[in-house]
């Protein structure tokens, strides 16, 4: 639990304070997103929590304890910290980077390296392939995963994340956001997440704190903020089109069709044809014995020569993961040019399909 009480930071007496009498409370296991335009004090607020910046006034309580009374190093070792530029140590290997905090805490060596492997797997990177590489050999998305892994290394109860996905391209960003949400569901950290992107705030936050000129404008759940914005500023920040924004809040799990027509790749084309006639979507998904998605068949492919599904199927361009939002699903549909998208779990196994009609249904429910 983190509680900010009348938190104020004034860098320059001639200017208004960067953070002004800010009070808010973040419950254990919750993600609180600080959002607002640049210069609104969100990053300053966050840096006061791990005391990279000392407040001019006011208090921060961590699990009821006044943070200014906690030993600085002890405080920081208990708080995971990820920033947009990541700040990986370029002279160290990936494993050494991740091991930073456990080493500071003097964990036994074996435990450290075991933890490194575990974390690499958590963030979806093969330990054997990556642990001995240097940061410069990684892509932006991979580096960002390492940054997140490093911050979680000693399992800190609190994490501070300053635009952690800000420097990534939209597709990688959505992917990492979803992965992080999945991880967070399991690890239940108390998170302060800073962003200027309201869509990201709606997607990632259990609570959103909208800030402006150092002051808290509104502190609410994403749903409440969308349905009852506190003032004109929040309305403008959220932008129009409430229904579309809601797509960030709903996960594909809620409208997924879990029993699409499936076939195996050895099945005869004639069977697929029968299935396609019954299917409203005009889609048969081809899977292997482990339910792994191999491809799909639509009526147009029946014209191709071939005896089994393997001969005529195509591989899907893009699928979405189970934790994705409807917004993610919709963007994939648009880029694939199809009215549906196949949903898979983290091992590429079929979970179901989400259709454009399904999404429309959600939008209509809300109007």
């Amino acid at each position, binding site marked *: 639990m983190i509680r900010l009480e009348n938190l104020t930071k004034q860098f320059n007496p001639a200017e208004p304070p960067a953070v002004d009498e800010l009070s808010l409370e973040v419950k254990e296991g919750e993600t609180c997103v600080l959002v607002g335009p640049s210069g609104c004090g969100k990053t300053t607020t966050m*840096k006061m929590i*791990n005391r*990279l910046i000392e407040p001019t006034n006011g208090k921060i309580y961590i699990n009821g304890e006044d943070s200014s009374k906690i030993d600085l*190093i*002890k*405080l*920081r*070792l*208990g*708080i*995971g*910290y*990820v*920033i947009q*530029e*990541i*700040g*990986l*140590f*370029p*002279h160290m290997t990936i494993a050494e980077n991740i091991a*930073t*905090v456990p080493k*500071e805490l003097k964990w036994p060596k074996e435990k450290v390296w075991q933890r490194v492997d575990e974390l690499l797997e958590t963030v979806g990177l093969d330990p054997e392939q990556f642990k001995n590489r*240097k940061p*410069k050999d990684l892509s932006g998305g991979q580096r960002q995963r390492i*940054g997140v892994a*490093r*911050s979680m290394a000693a399992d800190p109860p609190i994490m*501070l994340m300053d635009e952690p996905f800000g420097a990534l391209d939209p597709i990688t960003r959505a992917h990492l956001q979803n992965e992080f949400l999945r991880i967070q569901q399991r690890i239940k950290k108390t998170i302060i997440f800073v962003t200027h992107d309201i869509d990201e705030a709606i997607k990632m936050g259990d609570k959103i704190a909208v800030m402006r000129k150092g002051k808290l404008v509104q502190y609410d759940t994403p749903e409440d903020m969308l349905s009852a914005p506190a003032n004109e500023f929040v309305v403008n920040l959220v932008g129009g089109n409430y229904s579309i924004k809601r797509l960030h809040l709903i996960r594909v799990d809620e409208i997924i069709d879990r029993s699409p027509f499936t076939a195996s790749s050895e099945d005869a084309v004639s069977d697929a044809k029968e299935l396609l006639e019954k299917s409203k979507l005009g889609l048969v998904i081809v899977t292997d014995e482990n339910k792994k998605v191999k491809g799909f068949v639509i009526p147009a492919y029946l014209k191709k020569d071939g005896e089994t599904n393997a001969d005529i199927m195509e591989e899907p361009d893009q699928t979405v993961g189970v934790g994705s939002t409807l917004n993610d699903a919709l963007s994939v549909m648009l880029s694939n040019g199809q009215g549906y998208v196949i949903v898979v779990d983290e091992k590429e196994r079929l979970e179901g399909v989400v259709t454009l009609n399904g999404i429309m249904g959600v939008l209509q429910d809300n109007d």
Partner: protein
Amino acid sequence: MNLWENLVGGIAGLLDFMGRRSGQIAELTLEHFWLVLVAMIVAVLIGVTVGVLISYWDPIAYPVINVTQVIMTIPSIAMIAILIPFFGIGFNNGVAALSLYALLPIVRNTYTGIRAIEQAVLESAIGMGMKESGVLFKIKLPLALPVIMAGIRTSVVMGIGIGAIAAYIGAGGLGILIFNGINWVNYPMVWTGAIFISIMAIIADILLGWSEKKMSWRT
């Protein structure tokens, strides 16, 4: 024609000199090497420490670097004379003079090497709870090392050259051949001193350049 004969005669004289005095040359080379080595150890210890200290406090950084720059502009003969009241004559004076000359590249490169580290790297190290000593020894110095090494290399090569002057106040080394050669108008002797100093400088440059590359985290 005359010039050609002089040249051939000169080289023959030089080789003859080197052959006859090889024992002394080896001894003086070793002495020279020892003088430069001790001076460099002192200069690295002081230079890196000063470079680190001024990296914590910007307002004094440039004044300090400027002082080391002024030291470098003092003519070496004058420097040795200036140091006599403090270190007398002999080996210690030579070490002190060479160390002072070596300071600028080492101090400046340590400072710029540390200041060039990406802010995000330092912020994440501090934010994650590394102690300042950890940040210095595990992050700052390793990352600045290639730049510091480049400074040391400059200093060493320079020090080997200036080391010749130290013979003037009895610090020994290959400078003895040069000074005595001038006094006795023995040109093979002067040449021998100059050539061995150059060879030593070239070897040091190559070895340090190689280790600079070896120590670089960029590869």
